[in-house]
């Protein structure tokens, strides 16, 4: 209806004001094309009119940017300032209201109806596609670049064939000259020349050979030769095709090579001139081949576990060997030292130098560096805790770190000292071990030896509930095996410790005494 279309101004500009003011407002109430739902509700438009509004003529700047431009764009639009689309659009819009004017493509991304204009603008709106269409060039035909060659359907024969069969194939004309007249692949038709014999030769040469456990009949030998010729001496295939009673691959090989050998030798005049022939030069060793194949399959069949096991065993063996070497070296050093010390009791005399220390590979080296690294190696070899003890002891002697003036005498003396300290520590450890052993034995002796000792111990112990703890005390004493044994063992160990202390060393606490005296269990009376 006319009312639905709006005032002439509106019709021209393509706008419709919702405001019901007949005169038109001043300034005019502007309604965006994409009216909000509120407006829509106030002024329902037909779908057709809505579409008509949006239609515009083909001229003018792209309007898709509109969505994000805000109020100004609307004003421009109405006044037709921007590319004159307003005035033109109106007419076209009107004209196109009736007939669909699909000349212009619809903006691809229209604002969804539920969203407000601003919201739609935020999403980026209807933008022109920025990506060039990729499929543009795919269906184009490739330019023909290379020369075109004529191909000919040609008949050919192959020299590799024996039956003279004529086949045909496509062949390129210019290549024909290269290939020549024969079939190109006939050159690969190579065959191995297998030894042949006739009856007479066979009887003369081969049958003489036929001693031993393995008897080959003439028939078998012939069959073997035939297969060999057929299959180019591929023994595995021949073995597969072997018709007669079962023979192994090695047996086939053995028979073939011995026959070939015998024949060749009998044919040539001078055995020596044939000595370069491979059949003669390398004789086939039947037993060896069987063993070899067995070994090969075993080697291939080793599981990863077995391989790693072997590796580990080898490493372990190497380590043990190293250790044994070191032990031997140290023991010898010890023996030399003792010998030398026994010889000159005089402390001023130079002590025997260490001979077994590793020398560097280089032709020239720095003595100080070498002394330092060797000392570190020795300490590391002794173990982490021992290394610390060694350092501590060196510090006490005033020899912290490597010597400052590493002359020959000083370096050797220093390293010998390091070795001796390590040995001393080892003896200490050994002493501790042996003392533990002794104490254990003593405990066993006491435990087996009867009830006296526990009582004695009880009286000795300041437990304070002697009579009361009689029965309980026994069980307690059974637990406290360190009591009397500990005391007894304390004396020699204590003497040892005292003597050690005299030398200014800290004592390595032997574990026998290190076992803490367990606290007396609480008796009910206490």
């Amino acid at each position, binding site marked *: 209806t006319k009312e639905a279309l709006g005032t002439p101004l509106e019709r021209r500009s393509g706008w419709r004001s919702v405001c019901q003011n007949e005169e038109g407002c001043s300034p005019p109430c502007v309604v965006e094309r994409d009216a909000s739902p509120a407006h829509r509700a106030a002024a329902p438009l037909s779908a057709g009119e809505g579409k008509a509004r949006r239609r515009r003529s083909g001229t003018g700047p792209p309007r898709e940017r509109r969505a994000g431009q805000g109020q100004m764009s609307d004003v421009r639009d109405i006044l037709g300032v921007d590319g004159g689309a307003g005035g033109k659009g109106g007419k076209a819009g009107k004209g196109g209201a009736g007939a669909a004017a699909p000349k212009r493509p619809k903006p691809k991304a229209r604002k969804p109806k539920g969203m407000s204009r601003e919201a739609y603008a935020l999403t980026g709106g209807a933008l022109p596609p920025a990506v060039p269409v990729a499929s543009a060039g795919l269906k184009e035909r490739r330019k023909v670049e290379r020369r075109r060659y004529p191909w000919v359907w040609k008949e050919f024969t192959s020299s590799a064939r024996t039956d003279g069969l004529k086949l045909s194939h496509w062949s390129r004309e210019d290549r024909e000259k290269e290939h020549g007249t024969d079939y190109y692949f006939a050159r690969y038709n190579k065959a191995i020349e297998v030894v042949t014999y006739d009856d007479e030769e066979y009887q003369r040469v081969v049958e003489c050979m036929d001693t031993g456990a393995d008897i080959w009949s003439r028939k078998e030998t012939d069959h073997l030769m035939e297969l060999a010729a057929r299959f180019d001496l591929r023994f595995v295939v021949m073995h597969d095709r072997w018709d007669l009673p079962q023979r192994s691959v090695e047996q086939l090989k053995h028979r073939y090579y011995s026959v070939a050998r015998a024949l060749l030798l009998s044919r040539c005049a001078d055995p020596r001139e044939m000595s370069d022939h491979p059949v003669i030069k390398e004789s086939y060793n039947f037993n060896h081949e069987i063993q070899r194949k067995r070994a090969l399959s075993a080697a291939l069949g080793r599981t990863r576990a077995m391989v790693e096991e072997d590796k580990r065993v080898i490493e372990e063996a190497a380590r043990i060997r190293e250790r044994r070497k070191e032990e031997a070296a140290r023991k010898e050093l010890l023996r030399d*030292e003792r010998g030398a*010390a026994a010889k000159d009791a005089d*402390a*001023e005399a130079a*002590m025997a130098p260490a001979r077994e220390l590793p*020398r*560097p590979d*280089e*032709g*020239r*080296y*720095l*003595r*100080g*560096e*070498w002394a330092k690294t060797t000392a570190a190696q020795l300490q590391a070899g002794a173990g982490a805790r021992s290394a610390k003890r060694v350092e501590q002891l*060196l510090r006490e*002697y*005033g*020899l912290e770190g490597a*010597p*400052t*003036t*590493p*002359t*020959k*005498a*000083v370096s050797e*003396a*220093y390293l*010998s*000292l390091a070795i*001796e*300290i390590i*040995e*001393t520590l080892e*003896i*200490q450890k*050994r*002493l501790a071990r*042996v*003392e533990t*052993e*002794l104490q254990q*034995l*003593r405990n*066993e*002796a006491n435990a087996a030896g009867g009830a006296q000792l526990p009582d004695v111990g009880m009286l000795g112990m300041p437990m304070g509930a002697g009579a009361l703890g009689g029965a309980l005390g026994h069980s307690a004493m059974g637990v406290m095996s360190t009591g009397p044994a500990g005391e007894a063992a304390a004396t*020699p160990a204590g003497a*040892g410790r005292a*003597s*050690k202390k005299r*030398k200014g*060393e800290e004592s390595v606490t032997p574990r026998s005494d290190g076992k803490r005296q367990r606290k007396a269990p609480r008796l009910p009376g206490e």
Partner: protein
Amino acid sequence: MPRVEGGEVSVPLAYGTCSFYMGKKATDSASHKWTVYLRGAGCEDEDLSHVVSKVVFGLHTSFKQPTRTVESPPYEVTETGWGEFDITITVHFQPDANEKPLELAHMLKLYEDGHQQGAPQSTKKPVVSEKYDEVVFLEPEETFHSRLNNHVAMPLATPSTIAPFLPKYDDRAEIAKIQEARRKTAEQKAELEAQVEAVEAEVRGLRGGKY
């Protein structure tokens, strides 16, 4: 060229740095005047040119031409600077030694241990950091070996300027200390062994009695 089997020749040397604080003339970029050197330690001001053909000092990359080669003694490089860094010293031997050059490294020391930041330093007394070591030639070539053995240690014609400040070496004190330590260790060891013997004897006694 035959080599002397099982023989060895050693050349004692000392290398390090000697640094003077520049006092009034010090600037931010050059507060110390220091010298890195390599010298013979066998005798006073020893001339090492019979063994050493040239010494190459590798300074910090911020110095112009950081690789300095010195071909005649005294093997020294003197520079001014403000920072401490690692200096590489490569000693090239005479050709008849037929040995690869030896590489050493030494940290340039400008401040004494425990020096407080900003504390004043003397301009007369330098900060010296030196290391003594000996180059040992194992199984040297015969010509080289004989030449070294016949060589008489000579002092330098022009002694180095820093020579008076450098320490002298004597290994007798150290030998004495080490020998004392060895003696003590040997005593301890003998004692411990005696103890071990005693305890083991007891163990054997107990064991023997029981089983």
